[in-house]
């Protein structure tokens, strides 16, 4: 019962804030709605029994990436982002206009239709295992997996993070005049 309520709340939060991200005209509001989507996805992880992934999602995404996005929005020009946009037709404000939204809506509808058709055929043939309703903690086993089976990917991801952070610092460095 508790799981179902949590699932419904998280799904509503995820989808609603996702739609708001897609249709809001203000970039700052978009970032804040992305926060809601990410928290909803963390709730969905919790209903799937993935406690470690849920906490990591909140720590890394909500505490890190969205804050970084907000900093980028604030550093790159206030209310400039809806103005002085010129493309070939001269009708594109930077947060999208009716033509781009119509095109992307068409793509989205086609994508949803094809994928639902695929899902319906796949979902019936999946071998589902028995679901146990108590959700044990996964931290112990994930720790073992990270240093046993996936140790190469673990080390490579540390190198990737170091490289990305150093690269970001170098790229964003102010120009020497």
């Amino acid at each position, binding site marked *: 019962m508790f799981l179902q309520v949590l699932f419904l709340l998280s799904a509503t939060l995820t989808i609603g804030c996702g739609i708001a991200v897609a249709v809001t005209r203000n970039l700052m509001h978009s970032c804040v709605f992305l926060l809601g989507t990410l928290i909803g996805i963390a709730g969905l992880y919790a209903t799937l029994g993935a406690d470690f992934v849920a906490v990591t999602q909140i720590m890394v995404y909500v505490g890190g990436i969205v804050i970084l996005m907000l900093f980028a929005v604030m550093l790159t020009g206030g209310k400039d982002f809806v103005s002085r946009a010129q493309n070939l037709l001269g009708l594109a404000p*930077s947060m999208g206009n009716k033509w781009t939204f119509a095109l992307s809506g068409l793509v989205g509808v086609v994508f949803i239709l094809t994928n639902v058709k695929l899902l319906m055929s796949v979902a019936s043939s999946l071998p589902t295992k028995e679901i146990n309703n108590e959700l044990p903690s996964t931290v112990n086993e994930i720790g073992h997996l990270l240093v046993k089976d996936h140790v190469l990917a673990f080390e490579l991801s540390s190198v990737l993070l170091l490289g990305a952070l150093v690269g970001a610092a170098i790229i964003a460095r102010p120009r020497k005049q």
Partner: protein
Amino acid sequence: MISLTSYLLISLFLFVLGLVVMIARKNIVAILLGIELILNAAALNFVAYSRYVTNNLDGHVFSLFIIVVAAAEAAVGLAIVIRFFQIKESTHIDEATQLRN
């Protein structure tokens, strides 16, 4: 009520929303937001399959790696956006024409 299909549908919807953001927006930061939505949809699929189909936790590890890669991508992408803004005084994607011709 809660089944694998419901998670897959949520994930599909998130993916499509990310796709819509990436196609409709012309702002580079907004396009990065769309990429985050798409990466989250993929990670949600991994965890859902890990609970309902397989018997191990490899899907959780994969989605952890997705989160790591997303963090690295966001750091580099936003650094590029800030640099681009220093050069072009705009974050409109149509201004990025330096490599044209």
